């Protein structure tokens, strides 16, 4: 079925190495529009995880029946149909959640991550692996969007978790900076999202570069352990 190694690779790729937002830089449209706060970012990601897992498993199961020449229209058909079905099912059975997530579900259609993963992974891999790929790509998106949303919110209006009362009525946003904080509009506007996303990409590259440097410098460690300086 799926080996431990395969699973770890898929998870690592989704969360870090192939992270949709800061490595593949895909799906910027919903990313810019939605991450004005952390809660929105998390909610969009959750809805995307559901759709990505479903569309990946559907395409992976049908991959042997889809002729190569018309794969793109078929993928679009599958993704669009699934998004609509998820939208309807949410509305019918989880109405409270739908009122919160509802506006995000149609946004997923505009998200090329879904189509990208279907084309790059699900079309070539078995269903189980593809499901995990969908989920972990979504998890990668989740933490990135949560972080980006949180930073924009904090810089822009000095709060954290604004809109949480829409999801959990008993919770309230946290005012982190003093009430007198004048706000920083740029952070809340799309250009601010671009700038912060750029900073996150730089941070990710720096982390990777540092990790590579460490790996290169590894051999001397035993010497240190012996205590000969």
């Amino acid at each position, binding site marked *: 079925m799926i080996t431990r190694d395969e699973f770890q690779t898929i998870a690592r790729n989704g969360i870090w190495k192939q992270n949709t937002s800061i490595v593949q830089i895909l799906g910027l449209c919903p990313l810019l529009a939605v991450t004005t706060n952390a809660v929105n970012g998390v909610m969009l990601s959750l809805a995307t995880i559901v759709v990505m897992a479903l569309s990946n498993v559907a395409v992976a199961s049908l991959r042997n*029946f*889809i*002729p190569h*020449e*018309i794969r793109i*229209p*078929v993928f679009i*058909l*599958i993704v669009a*149909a699934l998004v*609509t*079905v998820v939208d*309807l*099912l949410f*509305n*019918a*059975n989880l*109405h409270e959640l739908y009122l919160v997530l509802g506006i995000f579900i149609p946004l997923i259609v505009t998200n090329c991550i879904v189509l990208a993963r279907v084309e790059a992974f699900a079309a070539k891999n078995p269903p189980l692996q593809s499901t995990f790929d969908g989920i972990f790509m979504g998890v990668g998106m989740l933490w990135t969007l949560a972080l980006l949303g949180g930073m924009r919110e904090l810089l822009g209006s000095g709060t954290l978790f604004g809109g949480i009362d829409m999801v959990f009525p008993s919770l309230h946003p946290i005012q982190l900076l003093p009430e007198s904080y004048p706000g920083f509009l740029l952070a809340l506007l799309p250009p601010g999202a671009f700038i912060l996303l750029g900073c996150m990409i730089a941070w990710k590259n720096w982390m990777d570069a540092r990790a590579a440097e460490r790996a290169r410098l590894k051999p001397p460690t035993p010497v240190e352990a012996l205590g000969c300086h």
Partner: protein
Amino acid sequence: MSEARAFSAQGMAVRTAAILFVFVIIFTGLLSAAYLWTKPSIEASAAEEKMKLIDEVLPRAEYDNALLQEAIALPPTPELGLADASTLYVARKSGQPVGAIFEAVAPDGYAGKIRLLVAIRANGQVAGVRVVQHKETPGLGDYIEVKKDKNKARPWITQFTGMALANVSDKDWKVKKDGGRIEHYAGATVTPRAVSKAVHKAAQWAAANRDRLFAEGAAK
């Protein structure tokens, strides 16, 4: 040779088209099935949501008819600020009309129109008012919405409850700053002024159409 290739290309095209067609049929079928299967519960939740809002303006204990089934189409009514047709609900207890629930629009909010849901009892009393939609300044004028009002015990909008043309004189249907009796927070007067005016007009409209609203309904 070239003919054979042309034929096979054609055959290929037909096969591909057929496969695409099958996919379209399957997924359209899936969509229709999902739509038909979820339709009743989606409609039920939409109705329930509507009732939730209506419950806020007129307590369910005051009437016993199936309100949503007895909707009356209301043509565009400039007196209520309604440029489009809307729906009016007549609440009845044992067949006797007890109140009317309708929409009203305050056209002169600080940032455009403020849509209200108003319930007027048959005796002319305002049973309740709720803001349905507005674009007032967040944190300043948005206390007209119960959810945003910091005063949870007695939200601003509940001041209208119980007011009637019979016991409140025309000049009292105004914010304090304009010499009326409607309390408001300092700094944002335009918003409460617009709402007060719209509620006053709604009460006047209900009084003017009293016979039509509460008698014509009774005949039904």
